[in-house]
């Protein structure tokens, strides 16, 4: 080393070094320039593009779901409201991380394989990789707490509250209000682009009943907000917001107390009750019993729950008042009588002699009146009034056959028979009010005289739903004005006008005759439902009916003991009250209850007592015997006390005035 150093040319070395420094400095300058140019290019030339990209990273538009409109009964009682439900969402685009998160979640809260299956399905359908995917609905307070405590370990897990439907009366209004449920894939597929936008923040849709038919006004208008999200999709803050518009509230004609009364009376039975406000067509009560709890459907019903409802022999999911079709039997007799009067085939006083059976002219077939089996004879001399009161078939067979099928089938349209009532909930059925054309179309056969015989007492091909029965009754009570039955009275603060569907112009005395006949049913000495009017505080009109559940062979003796319970006749009853100025029309159908007057009529009485006198029954209250409603007893007691008090006061007043006058006399 030392030797070499002596030979070194330090000057030349230094010059060489300075040279190299210059070369390196130049090289650095070039490289530094490219860096500067690169940053200039990114930050100045392409600034706009990257600024936009950065904003797109940061700001996301989120829909803000509107609050669904509430549903109230006629007295402002809340029938459907919204309550928060907590849903656990998972945000993830990394399968390995997701597996770890799910494993941890499984130790904290209950996650079923069904939940996981739905989660992966929803994950596949999300629009953006960082969209939250729902994993578990209806978290309990405890589960929320457990997730919250472990939040730091659960990246991308969030619990969000959303408002879901709640039905405080549970099964009471299930068939009327229906329910909301998760929007299905099929429903999304059928959405218009405008609907896709409207439902962008909403997870539920009306599936049934009023919830479905008034979906449009209940839903409201979706709002939106710009939110700042981080790279994992978590919302850091809300930048600005357009508030959603709440859905309109619905005010119904329904009276929750009347609905409750009907349910109380129906307990242990199967059937339907419909009560209509005569002057508007508003539905006061509509019960299909047994019913179900619509809350089960709101966030998705579990498979066992659904199976239990669906396989129940009493078919709680089946809406009897809207969809069950029965032969109306004798309940159509008032309409038949009116048709006879209207078309001049009978008059108010015309009477026939009934021997208990009827034969068509030139036919050997015997049509037996129900009284034949009971007393061995007929009703004797019957006119229209007593024929309705005693439910004499012979009178109407004779009237019907003379009138003919064409008059009958045409006349039915005044009462909405065989037609959709136009009620404001979906899936109504229209029954059958036959005509020659109908039979040719449906059965491929000509109309036989025997068909006319059956039809004139509401048997044979005739089918009606309880809601149709109620509309028919209300039309009679309204003297021919037929309103469209409606549940909704008011949307928001916008009242809906009653809709007149048809109007029958005929003589007042005809209506009076029908009313008298129907009042006789309830109040007359031989009225079929005379027991039901015991201790009545108003006059009512009614008509019973029996619908055969199975056909009974000619000459076969009807013996209910031999038939299984399910094969017994259905009991029907229609009624309205007060007779002088009708307010409420009721139709009752009890499956396999046999006696229209004995079984169904008391239900109608309870409904009218409740509506007209305020004798409501609680859902689980003991149903008192007819005329012995506790409220009636209390009312009578109060009246008695008030009378006694008034009498005492009158007496005291008389005494004091006497003493005043005597005092004045002393003063003088």
């Amino acid at each position, binding site marked *: *080393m030392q030797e*070499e*150093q002596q*030979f*070194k040319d*330090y*000057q030349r*070395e*230094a010059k*060489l*070094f*300075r*040279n*190299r*420094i210059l070369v*390196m*400095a130049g090289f*650095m300058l070039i*490289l*530094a320039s*490219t*860096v*500067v140019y*690169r*940053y*200039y290019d*990114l*930050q*100045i030339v*392409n*600034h706009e*593009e*990257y*600024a936009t*990209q*950065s*904003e797109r*990273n*940061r700001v996301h538009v989120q829909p803000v779901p509107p609050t669904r409109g509430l549903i109230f009964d006629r007295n402002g009682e809340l029938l459907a409201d919204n309550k928060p439900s907590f849903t656990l969402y998972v945000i993830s*685009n990394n399968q390995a991380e997701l597996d770890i998160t799910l494993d941890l979640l499984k130790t904290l809260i209950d996650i079923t394989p069904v939940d996981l299956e739905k989660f992966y399905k929803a994950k596949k359908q999300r629009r953006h*990789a960082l969209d939250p995917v729902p994993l578990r609905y209806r978290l309990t307070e405890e589960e929320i707490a457990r997730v919250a405590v472990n939040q730091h370990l659960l990246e991308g897990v969030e619990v969000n509250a959303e408002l879901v439907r709640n039905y405080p009366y549970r099964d009471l209004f299930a068939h009327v209000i229906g329910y909301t449920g998760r929007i299905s894939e099929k429903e999304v597929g059928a959405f218009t682009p405008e609907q896709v936008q409207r439902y962008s923040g909403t997870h539920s849709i009306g599936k049934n009943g009023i919830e479905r038919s008034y979906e449009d006004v209940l839903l409201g208008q979706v709002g939106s907000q710009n939110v*700042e*999200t*981080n*790279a*994992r999709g978590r919302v*850091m803050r809300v930048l600005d917001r357009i508030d959603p518009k709440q859905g309109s509230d619905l005010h119904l004609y329904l009276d929750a107390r009347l609905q409750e009364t009907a349910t109380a009376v129906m307990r242990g039975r199967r059937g339907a009750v419909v009560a209509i406000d005569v002057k508007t067509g508003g539905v006061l009560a509509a019960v299909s019993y047994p019913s179900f709890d619509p809350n089960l459907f709101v966030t998705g019903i579990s498979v066992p729950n659904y199976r239990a409802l669906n396989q129940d022999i009493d078919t709680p999911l089946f809406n009897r008042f809207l969809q069950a079709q029965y032969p109306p039997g004798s309940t159509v007799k008032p309409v038949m009588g009116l048709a006879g009067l209207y078309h001049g085939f009978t008059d108010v006083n015309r009477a026939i002699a009934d021997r208990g059976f009827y034969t068509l002219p030139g036919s050997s077939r015997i049509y037996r009146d129900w009284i034949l089996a009971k007393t061995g004879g007929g009703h004797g001399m019957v006119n229209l009034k007593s024929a309705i009161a005693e439910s004499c078939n012979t009178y109407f067979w004779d009237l019907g056959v003379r009138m003919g099928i064409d008059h009958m089938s045409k006349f039915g349209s005044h009462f909405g028979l065989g037609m959709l009532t136009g009620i404001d909930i979906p899936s109504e059925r229209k029954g059958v009010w036959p005509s020659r054309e109908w039979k040719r179309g449906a059965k491929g056969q000509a109309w036989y005289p025997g068909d006319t015989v059956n039809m004139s007492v509401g048997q044979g091909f005739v089918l009606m739903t309880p809601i149709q029965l109620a509309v028919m009754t209300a039309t009679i009570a309204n003297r021919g004005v037929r309103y469209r039955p409606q549940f909704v009275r008011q949307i928001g603060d916008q009242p809906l006008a009653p809709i007149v569907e048809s109007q029958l112009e005929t003589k007042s005395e005809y209506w009076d005759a029908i009313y008298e006949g129907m009042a006789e049913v309830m109040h007359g000495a031989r009225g079929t439902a005379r027991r039901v009017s015991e201790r009545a505080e108003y006059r009512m009109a009614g008509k019973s009916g029996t619908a055969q559940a199975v056909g009974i062979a000619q000459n076969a003796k009807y013996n209910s003991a031999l038939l299984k319970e399910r094969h017994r006749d259905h009991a029907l009853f229609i009624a309205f009250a007060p007779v002088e100025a009708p307010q409420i029309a009721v139709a009752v159908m009890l499956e396999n209850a046999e006696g229209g007057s004995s079984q169904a009529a008391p239900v109608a009485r309870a409904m009218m007592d409740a509506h007209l006198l305020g004798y409501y029954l609680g859902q689980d209250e003991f149903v008192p015997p007819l005329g012995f409603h506790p409220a009636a007893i209390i009312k009578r007691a109060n009246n008695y006390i008030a009378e006694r008090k008034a009498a005492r006061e009158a007496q005291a007043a008389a005494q004091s005035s006497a003493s005043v006058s005597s005092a004045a006399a002393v003063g003088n």
Partner: protein
Amino acid sequence: MSRQDFLRRMPEAASAFSRRARLAERLHIDFFLLALLMALTVIGLLVLYSASGHNLLSVEKQATFFAIAYVTMFTVAQIPVDFMRRMAPFAYVGGVILLVAVTIFGNVAMGAQRWLQIGGFRFQPSEIMKLALPIAIAAYLSGRFLPPRFKHVVAVLGLIGVPTALIIEQPDLGTSILVATSGIMVLFFSGLLWRYIAAAVVIFLASLWPIWHFMMHDYQRQRVLTMLDPTQDPLGTGWNIIQSKTAIGSGGLSGKGWMEGTQSRLDFLPEGHTDFIIAVMSEEFGLLGVLLLLTIYAMVIIRGLMIAVNSQNTFGRLLAASISSTFFVYVFVNMGMVSGMLPVVGVPLPLISQGGTAIVALFAGFGILMAISTEKKRVMTPQG
């Protein structure tokens, strides 16, 4: 200070020294360089506060490392340059031994074995090599005829090759490039003949294909491919580049403001506090901020090269030039990779990125620069 040096001192020159120069000389501090480093320290801590998500703890930790680094720098500055030269072989051999130890005992982090734990102290031996290698090569070449002859060039390449290979094995491509660069720089400044340089460039280009196919790891190949087209895998390996370019570009001329960078604040930018910190700075302070930083860096490098040029002995000259130009390579590679010009190799932005060992090693380098800068004033050149 040796006796010989003392005798050679020019008494008449002493009066020309200012008070400050004398102070600098006595303390072995280059005040100009110190001022620049302090400016970078302040900028670094400010940007780190924002980039770490307002985490005061990590800023405090970084400040502690800076404190250690400054102490290290002042300490190293006191070491006589000649002593460094004589200690060079031991530093080199020690460094290589530590690198070997890493491959045997090292801690594994993020798929690579880089850390060595001694007691409660954890450090990367490759950082030591960043200084030990140029010292060793400068020491080796300072005793030879310059420009170096072929056999010396081969020997130097051998000295470079051993630690570089060990670091590649860890694997840590970024550091191995920097270590090799620091050695090659010495060779370049020693006056390596241009024909050797030309030959090296040709060989390098020719070996690209075998390197690609046989020597590179999958993730390294992926980084190169990603740099060429980040949009190919926008959610995977391309994510970093797309997000850092977005961060830089959205900063514009004057930036979004301190702690207002949405790309970093909302976690779109990965590694925002370490290798990609320049993206945070670009987003928050814009092109003006970047130019300010580059100006300070440029002044540091120029100061370093001036120290090299003014150094009167070969060892100091080569070492100072190598340290300064390696510092440039740091800045260039980091800013290039973050802006998508170069593949992503883990090179931090010097003095700004979070990381303890790297900062201490850098400051040790500046300590050497200061030692060289303050030494030559006391030593008479052989030309007198």
